[in-house]
């Protein structure tokens, strides 16, 4: 498969970039932040996005989707990343819809996915239980109770958890999620602890569900979800959810990497613009060779990032055997790149970069939060090494 966008994807890219530039520029995120907006994104905007098919890029047409793939979702997310646009694309589509599509029964898919594609139902996946991505460390328990399950435990950093209608919760129906395996010092996906994991659909209104929003540095949406005997509906096979979880994380990471790439490109372009207009000591600062070389190095890292993001998305769409490897590859390269670009954007802007008024600070904040979500570069280097057999 060629590592280039096809004609339709190019068109999608242009229209998505124009959409976010016009309808959700950085000022939109500022407004959400400064008004402490309770939703954290615009529901109107989301309906428009859904109308364009973006909520169902990879969903089959039978479920109201447009039958394209993750590459298209990545293209849209990359455009969203340019303006730091907040939307349910990540939580509802990349995470939630991926999980339902992979694990759901025909009935569950029919019940949920068309509503997702229509922009009516919001989903999310409640994965983490601590500040670091350790997907196998799950203490939340699910106990069979007649037809359903009773879930108890505390999930944290659930994206859009404060507004999701249905939360896909990772819980343990068997196996060790206790200290024993939790302190094994292993990164994501170590087999210890992955057996016995299951997925459940939990209604946000169900009894025993307590949701509390969390305020993050990047002004994006996270929530704490506590379950106290809440009713959960099994999604997929009990105790055997790990392969699905692993795949959902890969897919969401590839999409997240696309968003991060878009943010990096915007911050970089903004910084190059500054180098071309800011004068110091009677010269444009862009003429200083030390800054030129650092700019050129950033350019190289961004170019490499473009390749790995496209590769990861294409590998997912092709259901390639190395899709997991490519997802970790993308997350590592993009995280390293974005760290460099976001730091340099501030430094090259000088004092003005430190002010809230200038946008580069928002890109820096988003950079670090996105980096931590679903595993930082160290976590994925470990996984990458494991997948390569060393």
């Amino acid at each position, binding site marked *: 498969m060629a590592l280039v966008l096809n004609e339709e994807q190019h068109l999608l890219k242009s229209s998505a970039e124009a959409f976010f530039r016009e309808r959700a520029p950085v000022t939109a995120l500022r407004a959400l932040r400064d008004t402490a907006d309770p939703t954290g994104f615009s529901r109107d905007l989301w309906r428009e996005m859904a109308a364009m098919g973006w909520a169902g890029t990879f969903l089959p047409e039978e479920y109201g989707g447009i039958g394209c793939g993750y590459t298209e979702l990545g293209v849209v997310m990359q455009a969203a990343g340019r303006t730091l646009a907040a939307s349910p694309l990540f939580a509802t589509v990349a995470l939630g819809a991926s999980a339902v599509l992979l694990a759901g029964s025909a009935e569950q898919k029919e019940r949920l996915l068309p509503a997702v594609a229509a922009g009516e139902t919001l989903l999310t996946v409640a994965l983490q239980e601590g500040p670091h991505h350790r997907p196998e460390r799950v203490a939340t328990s699910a106990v069979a109770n007649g037809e359903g399950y009773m879930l108890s435990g505390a999930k944290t950093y659930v994206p859009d958890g404060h507004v999701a209608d249905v939360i896909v919760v990772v819980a343990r129906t068997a196996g060790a999620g206790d200290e024993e395996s939790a302190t094994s*010092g292993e990164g994501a996906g170590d087999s210890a602890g992955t057996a016995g994991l299951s997925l459940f659909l939990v209604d946000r209104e169900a009894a025993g569900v307590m949701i509390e929003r969390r*305020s*993050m540095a990047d002004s994006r949406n996270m929530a704490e979800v506590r379950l106290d005997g809440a009713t959960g509906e099994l999604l997929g096979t009990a105790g055997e959810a790990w392969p699905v979880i692993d795949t959902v994380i890969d897919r969401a990471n590839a999409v997240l990497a696309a968003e991060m790439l878009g943010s990096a490109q915007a911050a970089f372009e903004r910084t190059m613009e500054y180098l071309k207009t800011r004068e110091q000591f009677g010269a444009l600062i862009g003429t200083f060779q030390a800054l030129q070389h650092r700019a050129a190095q950033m350019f190289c890292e961004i170019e490499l990032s473009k390749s790995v993001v496209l590769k990861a998305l294409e590998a997912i769409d092709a259901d390639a055997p190395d899709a997991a490897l490519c997802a970790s590859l993308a997350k590592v390269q993009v995280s390293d790149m974005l760290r460099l670009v976001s730091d340099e954007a501030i*430094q090259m802007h000088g004092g003005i970069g*430190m002010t809230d008024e200038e946008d580069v600070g*928002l890109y820096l*904040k988003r950079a670090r939060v996105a980096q931590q979500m679903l595993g930082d570069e160290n976590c994925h280097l470990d996984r990458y090494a494991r997948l390569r057999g060393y």
Partner: protein
Amino acid sequence: MDELEQFRQETRAWLEANCPASMRVPMKTEDEVCWGGRHFEFSSDDQRLWLQRMGEKGWTVPDWPVQYGGGGLDRKRVKILHEEMRNLGCRSPLSSLGILLLAPAMLKYASEEQKLEHLPKIARGEIRWCQGYSEPGSGSDLASLSTSAVDMGDHYLVNGAKIWTSYGDKADWIFCLVRTDPDAPKHEGISFLLFDMESEGVSTAPIRLISGASPFCQTFFDNVKVPKANLVGELNKGWTIAKHLLQHERSSAASLGATAPGSRKQSLQEMAVDAIGMKDGKLDDPIFRQKLARFHVREQAFTLTMQRVGDEMKAGADPGPASSLLKYYGSETNKERRELMIAAGGLDALGWEGEEFEEGRLARSWLRSKANSIEGGTSEIQLNIIAKRVLGLPQAD
């Protein structure tokens, strides 16, 4: 018993008698720092009393001459005073840009009359100062400033704007670089003026930073009248004073990178152990563990270099070239420390508001640290200085 030992005992006795108990416990937040000044709201009576008592004794600035409000103590006695204060846990009675930045320049360049007028009020915390150096657009090229002071016979008329004025909205007076000869080469038409922030035509606007705090202001001067007696040093020779002052600022910025002895805050190492856990006596993440070790190596190497430079200065070496190295390395080290705290803390360290995140303490400190390599001379400027002045590399035409 020798004189010094006697001084130590008297000092301890005086501190025990005069330092209120509440001034002997560590500060919980930055709000408890005493800045003094006309409008300062003391956080407690004890805070006011402690400043007043130390100010009367001249011990807010123990090494200054007595006539300027200082304690007139020699170096050994100053050291003893500080040791005894540390032993008793006494807080610093006064934090002051006047003491830190202005006074060293005043002592060297101001007239006797100016010293007698301004220094005692600084010493007693009666007047709080701010610094009017940077201007919108000047950035690293400080000498390109354009705030003008025009000679009107009996006064100067000041017009222009300053930026990055620390606590400009809370300060009583400003020391300010102004252009007094617009036709001279840029370094040669600058003068050093002092004036009251309550003068007509002065206004300030706080700048909100990415950390959410607003410690700096933009400060605007609209036909501000400044008496000619407020010129420090010679007319058009203000750049000399500015450079002297900047070097002081740079040296104090460098200390950011060093291990703060006796810091009460949780250290990076403790934080990492808490957040990551230990296994077989090692941090339970070999990659973070090595990163932390490399950071500590660099931090310790830097701290030792600060010590070595200090020792070399005592032995008579010129501190000049070292200040850029220390400024550069100190700020980069502190930025790295904050990045590691974020990495160790994960998403917990990126929380912004709410008690569970200590109102974003870690994230805000991390963001604040990004300014370290910009303020007081960017890292790029320091590297330029090293290349030119220390390494003697040739300069492009």
